[in-house]
């Protein structure tokens, strides 16, 4: 008996152990599974398994008209639905050679930036959760609730809006939005400061995040990383500045960058982005142009033949829509480029060699959403 056991042990790969995380694990942000090969506490290799939330959205798009497909775009990255919608509408508008009127563009900017704040507040909560603090989650969601209420007044929905339409927005913005936002603008920075006191300056939090998961910019370029992940490593690159869309060049805002490229920098970049987004929304609401909120588009949307790739700065990074049109009611092919897909692709590279607990934090710092990864 004893000998047999020894032989069996010899067959096993030595030193390494395989640990399965997920698909239903709170730290994996949805239905994401990865198999980690570990040596003691250190991760040697990560094999991510995705596809649990695959809904075949690209195939569905080929069988739907441009307008019918639009509600599904919200469901990609469900924390930043309006950013996705904006990108999709810009892509179709580019195909059809139409441009939204200035008022619509300003409303779109308000939508997108408020949604960015909402998404970053989820990140703030989740980051706390990842490091073992539960309170930030509640605080983050509490303030997000105020933003969602504004969305409800303005756009009708809270998570899935179908508000931005091809050629403008569905309904005009309300005057009450400004009142609500002003109130929010007065209270929120004070609260945010308190929240930051709660975890940003906390020694345990800093010890957990500093010098963990350092990524160099050359690697990030090569892996196709974008958004705050890229900015955390000292790359001052923002599509809103470099390829301005929807009138972003009119607003005055800064782009925060990190200097170390570790998880803590990515966290700080996002927290700073919240403040910058507040600035943009305040500016946009103050200088709201008058005029139409939508242009007249044909009843049946039939873009001419051609193909476009349009990207914008989503809440997590570069969202892009590649649409091939053959002059039909339906897109011939629609490819969605999502930041989460590229970032989870990078996970093995970023997390190997770290401790298991750090791998969770690194995954959290990419702020991935499985709905946008699996599509």
């Amino acid at each position, binding site marked *: 008996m004893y000998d047999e056991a020894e032989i069996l042990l010899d067959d096993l790969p030595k030193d390494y152990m395989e640990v399965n995380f997920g698909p239903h694990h709170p730290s994996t942000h949805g239905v994401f599974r990865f198999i980690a090969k570990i040596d003691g506490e250190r991760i040697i290799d990560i094999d991510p398994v995705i596809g649990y939330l695959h809904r075949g959205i690209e195939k569905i798009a080929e069988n739907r008209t441009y307008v*019918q497909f639009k509600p599904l775009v919200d469901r990609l990255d469900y924390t930043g639905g309006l950013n996705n919608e904006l990108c999709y509408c810009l892509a179709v508008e580019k195909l059809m050679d139409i441009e939204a009127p200035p008022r619509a563009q300003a409303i779109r900017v308000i939508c997108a930036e408020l949604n960015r704040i909402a998404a970053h507040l989820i990140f703030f909560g989740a980051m706390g959760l990842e490091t073992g603090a539960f*309170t930030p989650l509640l605080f983050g969601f509490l303030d997000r609730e105020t933003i969602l209420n504004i969305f409800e007044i303005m756009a*009708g929905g809270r998570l899935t809006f*179908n508000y931005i339409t091809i050629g403008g927005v569905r309904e005009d913005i309300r*005057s009450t939005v400004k009142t*609500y936002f002003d109130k929010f603008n007065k209270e929120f920075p004070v609260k945010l400061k308190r929240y930051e006191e709660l975890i940003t*300056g906390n*020694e345990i939090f800093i010890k957990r995040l500093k010098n963990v998961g350092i990524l160099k910019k050359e690697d990030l370029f090569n892996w196709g990383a974008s958004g705050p992940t890229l900015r955390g490593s000292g790359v001052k690159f923002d599509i809103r500045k470099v390829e301005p869309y929807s009138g972003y060049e009119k607003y005055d805002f800064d782009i925060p960058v990190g200097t170390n490229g570790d998880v803590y920098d990515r966290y700080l970049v996002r927290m700073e982005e919240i403040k910058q987004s507040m600035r943009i929304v305040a500016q946009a609401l103050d200088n709201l142009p008058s005029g139409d909120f939508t242009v007249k588009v044909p009843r049946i949307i039939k873009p001419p033949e051609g193909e476009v790739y349009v990207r914008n700065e989503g809440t997590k990074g570069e969202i892009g829509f590649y649409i091939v049109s053959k002059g039909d009611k339906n897109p011939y092919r629609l490819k969605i480029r999502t930041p989460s897909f590229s970032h989870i692709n990078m996970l093995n590279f970023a997390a190997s060699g770290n401790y298991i607990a750090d791998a969770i934090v690194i995954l959290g710092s990419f702020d991935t959403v499985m709905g946008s990864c699996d599509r």
Partner: protein
Amino acid sequence: MLGVGLLKGLKTTLRAFFSRPVTIMYPYERVRIGDRGQGLIKLRVTSFDPVVYKCTGCGICEKNCPQRCIEVTKKEGEKQPEIYTVNYGLCMFCRICIDVCPFDALEMTQDSEHIGYSRQDFIWEKEKLAMKSLYIVEEKTPASRDADGASS
């Protein structure tokens, strides 16, 4: 110094501890959906006795619904729908049907609750869709949401 951050954090926690609760007791208190909110669909009627729908049964909404959850038929020569059903088991409240209707026959309500014991209960007939409000909601709006932006 080690521990200062912890104490500062504790201050925030304590402040939250002594502030008013932000949650509401759901079945007893309810929040209203804003008037642009995505609720159940209502068929407009021009008169109740006899019931005359604004809908002419043209079927445009049926064709445009992305989820294919509307079913409309009409008798030859009539200007009223014979069958009009919405399957709320499939509907995603995208409001496309309301946007495309050329006769302005549909409207979105602020009722968001729909429950049933079987999947058949989610298929609503035209009579049910025309009813004003199915659930009598006693509204106790919390202070944080006292106005829902009804004034435009």
